[in-house]
């Protein structure tokens, strides 16, 4: 029983329609994404490698070479079993740099558009036999199924007509599959689903066919074994039919084809970027191929046992017809149809993308019309290219004499693509390879291949594959690839490589780690991206691409953080790479969205850390230990009780811990990746102030707090981190500390006043007694001159009292000790004199001589009252340490180098023992008797001087013979008078 051609064509259309619907359902999301993204789906999609050769050609191989037919499967399986050698590095490259084809990879590696164009053209040419093989498989299957004589079907008009019809149908479906998503032609979940479905169909069809024919011909597996026992020559002796060289060459062909064939490359690397899926494929695809190979021998033996005369390639269909089993015939046909259609669709899709990227767009053959969307133009170009490629395959099919078997066509195609294998191997393993060597080797290999293999075939000479032919084809394949490799190596060694090639070689190297770099864009916000891209893509396309990238990253159009802008740029490049190819995408992005400087600033640790966070739990071994260590230290930094932020040399915030977020009210998500100058003014000014200072300098700032209350912060900036320009800033809330310090200052001031109280009382008592005496005498005096003199004396005494009281009142105020440090020019000599005067009021104190030699014109920048407090404490300590009638000298000199003033207070006292010198700044530490000192004086002086931007140093004994006791050195900032008006204003006490 036969099928009519109309029935067969209808079945063909029906099957392809089902395949298309599966793809459509995958794209629309009808098939759950969990199934689409499952590793099993990925593994099944790789079954696209098993085309007409796997469904039909291997039957002829098995009949001719016995067990050597397994070489077809073993070559492919071996590539995936050893995925770590070649596939994993390629996957890493493709994922990171958005490479979707072999032409992309080699163009990226060898940095030349000529390489991409050459690879594309060569690929198109070498794959014509593969396309012809698929067309032959289906066309001949239709003929056999319709009952045509197997021996006469070759070269007939009917055969060619059927082939053309099939090409027409497959072109329509290939266009429907391949051009639905013009914006991202390399990511088609629907295509993955359809090809996985197709792999399942052909596997099921072959297994079911084997089960049917074994049952009907042999009566079951036992019958098959009995038949084999009675047929010692059921399989040709492998050693006699195929030489060792030929066997190894066949293995090499299919081993290389697993990575060089564009349909395999597309499904393995363009439609998938998950390395876990590749790990599953390392055993999953060999298992699938094992199951695919399992029914071949039973089908072959069933054909031999039944005595059918059709070529072995179509033994399954012929068996079904002979056994009057429509199911068997149908299954055999569907197996071949699904295998062939999958290869044609994916191959032409992959080749069309390559042709578009390297033959059309790179040569500016695509004119852009600003009023037309780029997507529409790209879609139509792909349709035209897919049609041209399928017609090219049909043309090659027509050129064939028809005497070639499917294995012969397969060897033609695989031996052609073998010429790309040296370049694929050298990409990760030999950095010295350059584009000149690649092009020279490829030209040599392809020339030898063309002359020795396709040309004889096209000249009506068959490609002898048998031992009788001396397995010449194997030698020709080896000569071509060895010549290719030799020329590649020699020319690469003899010619220089460019700097770009060297960088790319390093990137592609096996040991290279992909490190993101932090670079600044010239663009300041996401809103500018569209305008920048419009000249290259057109307004509509540019806007669509930017919006798409913003949606994918969930960024706002007002985004201005440098980290986010870099991310946006990378995403736009990735999306454009899928649409236009990586080379064109890189050109567009580099020209429209350039970086601010041509050199990378530093590693982008923010991006690296986010990737590590996403990859949490996936690491093993040492990588897992290092990641745990990173998390531990990261958490330590995050949990520090002080605010910590890290700032890059370019001003980008790299780290913002939890305390920093709490103190500033700015979350880490907002701060990290942005410039510190874009922070709220309060914090921007604070960071600016601390970064302007020298490293290790601590500044204090008062900030408005809640409900009108102030709060104080201290900022401390570290030195630049070794090997980079990054700096660390520590932020601490010192409000409580500052309030405590102010209280201490006020109390110390009052304590000083208390110490002076007795002397003050005595000082006031003297003039009061004098006034009383003079007043008494006035009562008895009648001489006007005596009265006037007495009155003048009384006035002088009251003035004396007024001065003492005024000094005490001014001193006790000191700005009420509430932190309002006023930095203004202070006359140093006057301040010292005032301090000496106040100290001299204390009559119980040891009598010493103060020698103030400070320049009367010298001004320092500080708070006058606090400076007075400091001098009172220091001069008081010097007096307490000095012997009676000792001398305390106060001198000052300018330091021209840093615009500061050094003030020396020298005493001739007993000095400070070395072991106590370290402790004198400790609060409450004192060597005086109980009740004589609080131990807060020196710490307070230190704090006052530090607040004024100065420093304090104590040396005991002094540095030279003039100071036998202790020398206290203050360094304060020199102040300048801006104008005479300021002088006048200061003198009168008016504000200036």
């Amino acid at each position: 029983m036969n099928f009519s051609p109309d029935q067969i064509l209808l079945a063909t259309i029906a099957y392809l329609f089902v395949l298309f619907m599966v793809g459509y359902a995958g794209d629309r999301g009808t098939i759950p994404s969990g199934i689409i993204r499952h590793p099993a789906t990925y593994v099944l999609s790789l079954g696209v490698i098993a085309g007409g050769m796997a469904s039909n050609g291997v039957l002829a191989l098995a009949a001719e070479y016995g067990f050597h037919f397994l070489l077809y499967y073993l070559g492919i399986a071996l590539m995936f079993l050893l995925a770590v050698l070649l596939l994993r590095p390629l996957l890493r490259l493709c994922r990171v740099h958005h490479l979707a084809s072999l032409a992309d990879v080699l163009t990226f590696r060898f940095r030349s558009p000529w390489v991409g164009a050459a690879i594309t053209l060569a690929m198109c040419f070498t794959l014509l036999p593969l396309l012809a093989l698929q067309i032959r498989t289906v066309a001949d299957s239709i003929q056999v199924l319709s009952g045509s004589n197997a021996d006469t079907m070759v070269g007939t008009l009917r055969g060619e007509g059927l082939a053309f019809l099939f090409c027409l149908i497959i072109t329509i479906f290939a266009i429907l599959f391949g051009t639905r998503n013009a914006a991202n032609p390399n990511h088609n979940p629907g295509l993955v689903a359809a090809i996985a479905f197709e792999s399942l169909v052909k596997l099921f069809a072959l297994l079911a066919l084997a089960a049917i024919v074994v049952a009907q011909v042999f009566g079951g597996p036992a019958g098959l074994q009995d038949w084999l026992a009675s047929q010692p020559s059921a399989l040709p002796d492998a050693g006699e039919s195929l030489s060792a060289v030929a066997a190894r060459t066949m293995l090499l062909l299919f081993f290389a084809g697993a990575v060089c064939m564009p349909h395999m490359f597309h499904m393995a690397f363009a439609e998938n970027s998950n390395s876990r899926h590749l790990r599953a494929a390392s055993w999953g695809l060999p298992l699938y191929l094992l199951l695919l190979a399992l029914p071949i021998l039973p089908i072959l033996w069933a054909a031999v046992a039944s005595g059918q005369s059709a070529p072995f390639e179509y033994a399954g269909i012929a068996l079904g017809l002979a056994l009057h089993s429509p199911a068997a015939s149908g299954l055999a046909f569907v197996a071949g149809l699904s295998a062939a259609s999958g290869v044609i669709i994916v191959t032409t899709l992959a080749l069309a993308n390559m042709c578009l990227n390297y033959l059309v767009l790179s040569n500016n053959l695509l004119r852009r019309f600003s009023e037309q969307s780029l997507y529409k133009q790209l879609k139509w170009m792909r349709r035209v290219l897919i049609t041209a490629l399928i017609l090219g395959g049909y043309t090659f099919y027509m050129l064939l004499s028809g005497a070639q078997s499917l294995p012969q066509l397969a060897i033609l195609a695989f031996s052609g693509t073998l010429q790309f294998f040296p370049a694929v191997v050298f990409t990760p393993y030999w950095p010295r390879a350059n584009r000149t060597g690649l092009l020279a080797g490829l030209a040599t290999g392809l020339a030898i291949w063309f002359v020795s293999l396709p040309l004889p075939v096209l000249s009506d000479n068959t490609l002898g594959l048998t031992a009788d032919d001396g397995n010449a084809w194997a030698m020709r394949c080896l000569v071509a690839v060895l010549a290719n490799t030799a020329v590649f190596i020699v020319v690469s060694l003899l010619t220089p490589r460019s700097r770009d090639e060297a960088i790319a070689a390093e990137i592609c190297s096996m040991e290279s780690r992909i490190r993101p770099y932090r670079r600044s864009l010239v663009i300041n916000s996401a809103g500018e991206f569209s305008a920048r891209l419009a000249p290259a893509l057109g307004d509509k396309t540019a806007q669509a691409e930017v919006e798409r990238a913003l949606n994918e990253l969930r960024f706002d159009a007002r985004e201005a953080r440098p980290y986010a802008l870099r991310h946006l740029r990378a995403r736009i490049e990735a999306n454009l790479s899928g649409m236009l190819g990586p080379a064109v995408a890189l050109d567009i992005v580099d020209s429209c969205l350039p970086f601010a400087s041509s050199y990378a600033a530093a590693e982008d640790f923010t991006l690296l850390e986010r990737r590590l966070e996403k990859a949490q739990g996936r690491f093993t071994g040492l990588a897992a230990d290092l990641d745990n260590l990173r998390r531990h230290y990261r958490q330590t930094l995050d949990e520090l009780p002080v605010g910590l932020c890290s700032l890059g040399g370019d001003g980008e915030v790299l780290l913002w811990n939890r305390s920093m977020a709490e103190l500033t009210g700015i979350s880490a998500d907002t701060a990290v990746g942005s410039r510190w100058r874009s922070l709220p003014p309060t914090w921007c000014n604070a960071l600016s102030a601390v970064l302007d200072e020298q490293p290790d300098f601590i500044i204090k700032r008062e900030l408005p707090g809640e409900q009108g209350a102030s709060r104080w912060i201290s900022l401390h900036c570290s030195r630049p981190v070794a090997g980079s320009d990054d700096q660390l800033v520590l932020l601490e809330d010192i409000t409580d500390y500052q309030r405590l310090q102010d209280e201490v200052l006020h109390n110390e001031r009052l304590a000083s006043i208390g110490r002076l109280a007795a002397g003050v009382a005595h000082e006031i008592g003297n003039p009061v007694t004098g006034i009383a005496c003079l007043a008494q005498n006035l009562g008895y005096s009648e001489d006007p001159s005596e009265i006037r003199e007495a009155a003048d004396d009384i006035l002088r005494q009251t003035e004396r009292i007024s001065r003492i009281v005024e000094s005490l009142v001014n001193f006790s105020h000191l700005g009420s000790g509430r932190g309002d440090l006023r930095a203004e020019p202070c006359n140093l000599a006057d301040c010292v004199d005032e301090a000496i005067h106040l100290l001299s009021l204390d009559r119980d104190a040891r009598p010493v001589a103060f020698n103030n030699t400070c320049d009367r014109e010298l001004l320092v920048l500080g708070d006058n009252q606090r400076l007075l407090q400091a001098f009172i404490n220091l001069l008081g300590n010097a007096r307490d340490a000095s012997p009676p009638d000792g001398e305390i000298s106060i001198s000052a000199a300018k330091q021209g180098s840093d615009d500061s003033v050094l003030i020396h207070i020298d005493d001739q006292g007993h000095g400070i023992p070395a072991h106590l010198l370290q402790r004198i700044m400790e609060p409450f530490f004192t060597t005086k008797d109980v009740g004589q000192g609080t131990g807060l004086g020196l710490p307070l002086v230190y704090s006052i001087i530090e607040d004024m931007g100065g420093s304090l140093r104590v040396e005991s004994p002094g540095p030279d013979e003039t100071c036998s006791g202790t020398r206290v050195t203050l360094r304060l900032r020199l102040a300048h008078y801006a104008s005479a008006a300021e002088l006048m204003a200061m003198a009168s006490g008016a504000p200036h």
Partner: protein
Amino acid sequence: MYIDRALLLVFGLALVFFPTLEGWVFADAEHWYRPFLIWFGVVLAAFWNQYRRGTDEL
């Protein structure tokens, strides 16, 4: 680049003992299933290899 030593050992042994194995595996058509058994064993070894070790790539 990490290559599991177990898998390398399997391939190494296969290479060394291939002449001996070849005679047994491809003895005659009656025991046509032997190559597939060997093949299945290699698949199991590959499955065990990738199952034990995770990936350290981002």
